[in-house]
């Protein structure tokens, strides 16, 4: 399941719902991305996330589908927030449930790596020196590349 929303989410509740009623699940792996209060040497007071409604959902669904084709998963979840967020707030949540831990760990890692380079979100940081758009990082592209298949 995927969700794009402005409001916060409760990771405990989400994890509970993800595996509820399916006793074939042996493990759930999850990742939460949060707003840091620094970027390099600068203090960050807040950030604003913009996205492309319509394309975002389509890309997240494609990422989730890809994970389900690669690993034997019982359930997956991607929640991504948009709007204004302050340091300490949750931005993104991904989780993968499977009979065995390897698939859950790998799929969770894959979901967040792919999302970072494919889902159309853009962060603008409110830094001490002014507002600035976050630039895409080469290391994120590298992280995605290791999941590429021939």
């Amino acid at each position, binding site marked *: 399941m995927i969700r794009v929303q402005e409001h916060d989410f409760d990771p405990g509740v989400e994890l509970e719902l993800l595996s509820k009623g399916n006793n074939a699940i042996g493990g759930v792996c999850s990742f939460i991305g949060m707003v840091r209060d620094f970027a390099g040497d600068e203090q960050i007071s807040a950030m604003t*996330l913009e996205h*492309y409604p*319509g394309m975002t959902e389509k890309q997240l669904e494609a990422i989730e589908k890809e994970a389900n084709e690669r690993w034997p998963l019982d359930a997956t979840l991607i929640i991504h927030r948009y709007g204004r967020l302050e340091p300490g707030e949750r931005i993104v949540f991904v989780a993968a449930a499977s009979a065995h831990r390897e698939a859950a760990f790998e799929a969770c890692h894959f979901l967040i790596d792919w999302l970072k380079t494919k889902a159309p979100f853009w962060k603008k940081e409110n830094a001490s020196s002014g507002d600035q758009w976050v630039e895409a990082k080469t290391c994120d592209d590298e992280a995605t590349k290791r999941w590429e298949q021939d």
Partner: protein
Amino acid sequence: MKVLYFAWLKEKTGTSQEELDLPEGVSDVEGLMHWLRDRDNGFASAFSKDALIRVAVNHEYVEQDHVLANGDEVAFFPPVTGG
């Protein structure tokens, strides 16, 4: 067709979305980008470096040689930074 701009492309062009007829002589994404660049200073600044711009047509990523049709939804944006 519908053309959308996000992040700093939206700020530099002063436009979030607009309806356009495929301009005469323009057949692909690259042609449209060159046509937009010649509009005014804001568009010229936004489209000054092709390498910094990602393009989606009908919600799918495309390359700059992608052929356009009237009725397409075309979006221009910087490399994504979510997660």
